[in-house]
């Protein structure tokens, strides 16, 4: 019984850490937008990196995806889907962006 409540506390702490971290990153994201304005590429890059950090944080602390041996199959599934998705997204953006430039549609 004691060990169980110990495990319970530990798992709950995991969620609280994930929540606290996500909260800080969200505040940082909107804070940066508020203070510096959302006009320049540098600011947007910062916001993008903060978003990415939050994505990873939630994958680890909420969805429990990590490099532990037992959850590795699912990690492979996630990584492979992400790879396919990235090829599709970057391919779309690349091809259509290129087209737009050549057609002088001043995209991006």
């Amino acid at each position, binding site marked *: 019984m004691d060990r169980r409540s110990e495990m319970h506390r530990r*798992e709950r702490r995991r969620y609280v850490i994930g*929540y606290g971290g996500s*909260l800080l990153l969200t505040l940082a994201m909107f804070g940066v937008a508020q203070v510096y304005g*959302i006009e320049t590429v540098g600011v*947007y890059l910062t916001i993008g990196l903060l978003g990415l950090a939050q994505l990873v944080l*939630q994958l680890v602390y909420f969805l429990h995806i990590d490099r532990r041996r037992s959850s590795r199959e699912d990690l492979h599934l996630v990584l492979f889907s992400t790879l396919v*998705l990235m090829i599709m997204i970057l391919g*779309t*953006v690349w091809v259509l962006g290129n087209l737009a430039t050549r057609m002088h549609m001043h995209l991006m």
Partner: protein
Amino acid sequence: MKRAPTHSYPGINLGEHHASAHKATEVVTFGFWVFLMSDLVYFGLMFAIYITMIDAQAGGPGPHELFDLKSVFAQTLILLTSSLTVGLAMLALKYNLPRGRIVLWFGVTLVLGLSFLVLEVRDFMAMAEKGGIPQRSGFLSAFFGLVPMHGLHVATGCLWLIVLGIQLRVKGMTDVVISRVVRLALFWHFLDLIWIGIITIVYFGGLTYG
């Protein structure tokens, strides 16, 4: 500090306290991950379309006129908090806490999910008033193909929450019900991940490049 003994799929593991439920959950959870990943492909492609459509405003209202960052901020906080409470509901179930605690976290999650939806629908209505309707431009079509789809997922999650709440009451904490709650928690966390993508790409990206 010992590691949890049996950890065979991502998301919260039921472990040795629910040995039978744990076994039953393992396979279906992996299947559910496959579903989530295919759902991710849908969202990913909608993101790609949105990125290519940011400039295609056809003289209609753009991100600067339409987006309300304060409301988006509130929605972000609400959804993030609901992601925590659905996790706490899951833990309450895993560690056999009194039923009242489980119902409490379920209820809080439901209320947060519904308030998220209310704010989102209010945003859409405000956008429509300014002429931001899906058929106005390619940009708005892409927006309304992506963001309301996420809202629809949240609405489905709320419905699922209600159904599971009823099942918990009627059937009690059987293995099947517990394993369903595990998947609901996964689904809910996944929706929060998509939302992070939406604020970063749709809202901030739209404001930067639109």
